[in-house]
């Protein structure tokens, strides 16, 4: 027996439902979301669907152009590089290094940033100010310089990129969360909750945090695109992922020797970096405009 609707008035959509409706109204944001979902799937299952292993060298097909060219063959869909490695397979294998590692870095930086940022945002006076200035100093070291410093201490490698990018992303999270918590703390509904007898922990978690998550989400998408670009740039400079690894930035670096007569070894990994950052940015833009009317 079906449920009869007792009340005729419209249901009031919840906050997340409203955000989703505004977000889904924009086709480009949905396209970006699909792109991000595909990238997520690829970074989990890419190695299983790739036709070749990442290091498999086909000696009969060195520097083969992509399949739409006359000299190309469908068996190597996006062509091969100078060692005969299939570029399409390497891209699929590399998604977990470029996109997956970027996601891990952002999640860790977010975790650290939320904790430090909310503690420093809830504090007042000198303590909060000292923390803020230390972070300003960290923030003023660009991510690439931080990476150079980390590489100088520990040597190159993908795990060190994780630390380098993480250290340079965390202050941004801390700063924006600190600022939002600080601003919310001045508002009257917080005073009302204090007068109701809420202790600082309750104020923080039940009163302030629901209003901070929006900022956190937006900051996360921004950080995500920055992290992908940083990891790729470090790979390109040979400070991050090392040579045989199919990380997209280091693929560009490895293709550089044959750039003049085999430009696809550079352009195709570049396009995949561009498309993944674009997808993340489209989602970020969509979220920002969906959240904007509610924040004001």
């Amino acid at each position, binding site marked *: 027996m079906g449920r009869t609707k007792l009340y005729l008035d419209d249901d009031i959509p919840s906050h997340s439902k409203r955000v989703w409706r505004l977000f889904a109204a924009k086709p480009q944001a949905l396209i970006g979301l699909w792109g991000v979902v595909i990238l997520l799937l690829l970074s989990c299952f890419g190695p299983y669907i790739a036709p070749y292993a990442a290091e498999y060298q086909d000696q009969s097909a060195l520097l083969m152009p992509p399949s739409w060219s006359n000299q190309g063959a469908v068996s190597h869909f996006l062509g091969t590089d100078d060692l005969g490695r299939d570029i399409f397979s390497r891209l699929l294998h590399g998604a977990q290094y470029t996109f997956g590692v970027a996601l891990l870095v952002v999640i860790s930086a977010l975790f650290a940033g939320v904790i430090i940022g909310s503690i420093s945002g809830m504090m007042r*006076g000198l303590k*909060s*100010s000292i923390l*803020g*200035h*230390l972070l*300003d*100093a*960290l*923030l*003023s*070291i*660009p*991510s*690439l*310089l931080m990476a*150079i*410093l980390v*590489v*100088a*201490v520990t*040597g190159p490698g993908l795990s060190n990129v994780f630390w380098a990018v993480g250290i340079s992303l965390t202050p941004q999270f801390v700063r924006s969360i600190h600022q939002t918590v*600080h601003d919310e703390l001045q508002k009257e509904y917080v005073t009302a909750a204090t007068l109701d007898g809420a202790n600082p922990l309750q104020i923080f978690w039940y009163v302030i945090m629901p209003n901070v998550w929006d900022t956190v989400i937006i900051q996360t998408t921004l950080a995500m*695109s*920055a992290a992908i*670009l*940083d990891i*790729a*740039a470090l790979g*390109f*400079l*040979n*400070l991050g992922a090392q040579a045989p690894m199919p990380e997209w*930035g280091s693929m*560009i670096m490895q293709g*550089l020797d044959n*750039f*003049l007569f085999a*430009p696809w070894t*550079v*352009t195709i990994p*570049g396009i995949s*970096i*561009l498309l993944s*950052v*674009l997808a*993340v*940015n*489209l989602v970020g*833009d969509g979220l920002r405009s969906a959240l904007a009317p509610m924040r004001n």
Partner: protein
Amino acid sequence: MGRYLIRRLNLFLATTLALFIILFVATRWFPADLSYALSGVALPTTQQQLQIEQDYALHSNVISQFLAYVTERLSGNFGISVTSRQSVLNELAGVLPPSFELAFVAGIIALLCGIPLGMLSALSRSKMVQKTIMAATLTGYSIPVFWLGLLLSLWFGIELGLLPISGQINLLYQIPKVTGFMLFDTLLYNGDYKWNAFADVLAHIILPACTLAVLPFTVVVRITRAAMLNVMNQTYIRAAEARGLPYHTIVLKHALPNALIPLLKHLGLMLGPFASYAIVVEVIFSWPGVGAWLVSGIYQRDYTVIQAGIFAVALVIIFFSILIEVLYTAANPMSRKEMYGTN
């Protein structure tokens, strides 16, 4: 205002101190002998070794070591470079001006193209124009800069053969270094082929500057657009319209100056990513600046170069971000309201 300036000066000093602490700690973690990492002298004679130990107070406790470190660095002793055996300070003085030149030209390009386009996309009533500009800026924001630089140099430098793709000037020209800024040096140079040299320098700077300008350009367009849309809804714009002022006066005299204020604030926040991009661009176009110097320093594990380069770049960024913040406060009286009582 005086109190505010003192607070900003304090901030500058505190941040510099924090920077020193970070570098001091990192230096102790370098996988090398401490006296070597500090001075860059690989095989010191006994006398040199004693001198280094005395300069950096290596036999005292950590606090006095740190004080000695700060004193040495502030008095200009950055040690010597392991590879070139030159004083790092002199090398630094040689590589900083080209970087400033590149960053300055890129910034000018970004502002000159970005502000009008941002205004256009805010004021235009055609959806088509708005969407095209927004799509272009989003793509520009997402593009990996090293890849863009490679494509531009392949296309304009090699396929079309229009522009040089590496270095700052053709080696045929022997221009004496006066200011270090090549654009000024060629103008100051009094010899034959002065204008040819100047044109050559201009041709060399076009590709790197355009590549570097893409990121600030997209940010400038987006911020100008948002600020302009915000300003055009204010009541004083409606008042100006009601007084019957012509449209261009309203836009240029009443709206634009107010829209530029948030832009100024965001320029300060953009310095860090901009410096990262500049390092990559310098490497790709073999620009003889501090970024390429630093990256070659890390390839050769030249620890004194790494310390000096990071110190110089971070200090420049701290200085300019505080300067921009001060300018922002000076230009925007509304922000001074919140200045007291908070941090």
